[in-house]
């Protein structure tokens, strides 16, 4: 059975109430989605919350998912939207940063999380945090989630040209920030 058919079969079973199918979907996508959320937010706790909420919401609304859906794209879009909403919740975001600064001088990554997150992702996340959010999101979706510019344009409600510009500027800055990391 081809990959596309496997995916559709999985969605079909999930739509009809199969916990095994949901578990397979979760296991297949969870790390990529969590990585995306971490890169977007620079906060493992918030990223976990968002990924948790995305999967619970998908389970709740399984009846509305179409068998031929691009499930990965749907999940990525959902994570991106929720991450943006999270950031826009200014009070919540500020409180989170303040709490992290008080509790953990090393930043949003707790020491026990290092084994989970990995040093390279921390570097990437810290570099991404220095970009304007729209650039950060565009780069993460394009480079990390491998979405096309038109797909990102739909998520960002911007023109394709704007998205391309955001990626270009974001990548340029990211290159300079990460150059030594990548050369290593």
């Amino acid at each position: 059975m081809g990959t596309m058919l496997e995916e559709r079969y999985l969605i079909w079973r999930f739509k009809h109430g199969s916990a095994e199918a949901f578990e397979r979907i979760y296991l297949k996508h969870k790390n990529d989605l969590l990585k995306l959320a971490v890169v977007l937010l620079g906060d493992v706790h918030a990223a976990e919350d968002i990924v948790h909420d995305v999967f619970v919401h998908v389970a709740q609304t399984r009846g509305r998912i179409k068998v031929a859906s691009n499930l990965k794209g749907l999940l990525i879009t959902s994570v991106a939207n929720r991450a943006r909403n999270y950031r826009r919740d200014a009070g919540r975001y500020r409180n989170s940063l303040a709490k992290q600064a008080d509790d953990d001088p090393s930043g949003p990554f707790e020491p026990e999380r290092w084994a989970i997150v990995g040093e390279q992702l921390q570097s990437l996340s810290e570099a991404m945090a220095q970009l304007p959010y729209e650039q950060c999101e565009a780069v993460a979706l394009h480079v990390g989630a491998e979405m096309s510019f038109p797909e990102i344009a739909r998520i960002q409600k911007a023109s394709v040209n704007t998205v391309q510009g955001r990626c270009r500027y974001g990548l340029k800055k990211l290159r300079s920030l990460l150059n030594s990391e990548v050369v290593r």
Partner: protein
Amino acid sequence: MKHTDDLKTYYRNANLSTDPAMDRAVLTDALKAGGLTYGKVPAAARGRNKDQTRRGSESPAALFGRIVMKNRVTKLAVAAGVILAVVLGLSLFTGNGAGKVYARMVDQLHGVGTLTYSQVTMTGVEAMPTVRMEVAFKNPGHLRTATADGYVTVIDSTENRFRGISLVPSAKSYIAFDASNMPDGSGAGPWVSLEKLQALPTQADELLGRKQIDGRSLEGFRVREGDTTATVWIDPATDALVRAEMEFANAPGMNVILSDFQFNIPLDDSLFSLEPPPGFTPMKTGLEADMSKVSEGDLIELLRMWSHWTVDRTFPPTLLGTEIPKIAMQMGREGKFTDAQISGYEEDQQVQIMYRGMLFMGLLPNGTWRYAGQNVPFGDPLTPIFWYQPQGSPTWRVIYADLSTADVTAENLPK
């Protein structure tokens, strides 16, 4: 770092795994929230599915077969192409101010019973195919078009109504259609246009002199009328029209060539039968439209629906040509269509939307519209995908990729 690929590799290599506690939390909460259970998929759940209700019990294998091999969007898109072929067959002879009275007069003057010719439409766009079609008319109001690969459409028209049937040989299926309240002149058949072409030499802006075409010495005349430049080639020995070429200023690269005219040759009535050949099954029946109520909004709905059909949300590769059925089937095979239900429309509604959208296209005279939506995804409010000049309007209507519209002067049209 020099390339985006380096960053992709760096991103991929940035390790991350979820916390087992998180996995437990997600699975517990999601299974509870979604009512998911381990074990066999409950039969009751299958019954809730709209498709299952219609088809009864269906295995996953059958489901996959339906999705990939018999994708309803593919079928609907094929139907769209067939309908498009129909309306394009008509469109050459609609509009341009030709009225019923004039049509009758021309008919009486010539007393022509049958007419056949070849029509080649070149789009000028690389991704769009050149369409070659054989056209046959027989009084009163019978039309037959056939492409080289066997797509046949037969139409029976009166002054303000037409009904017809289109065959899709590759699927051994057919589609029947009906339209009432046709605009003035659209039921006049080919005679009006031919008479206009025949009369063009008397109004010529430019005399092209003699030229050998297909072994015949012909005299050429060029006439510019509005957006259209017509070049006609006449046999000086008989004054008969041999070839007509039309180009359109607002559709650069597009042209239509009519040739091989034959008058009053015997054409059997069976060529114009509205009965499908044995073994052909109906794709969809009951396609009906009141043409007086067909509008730009119908085309917009068609474009919206198609963009929901495609996985990448792009618009149709073309709005011109009998090649669309083949393109649609190819797109279906390549998995470029989603499930028909995703469009948010009922299936019957989708067919009607296609039909009405295609009829709107058929009402637009050649050279008064341009389509640029191929490979363009839905969404960008600044990307024009279609523009046309409503009859009698000094400005053009432009439809953008977010399906918004605007009135634009000719000098501000997209290049």
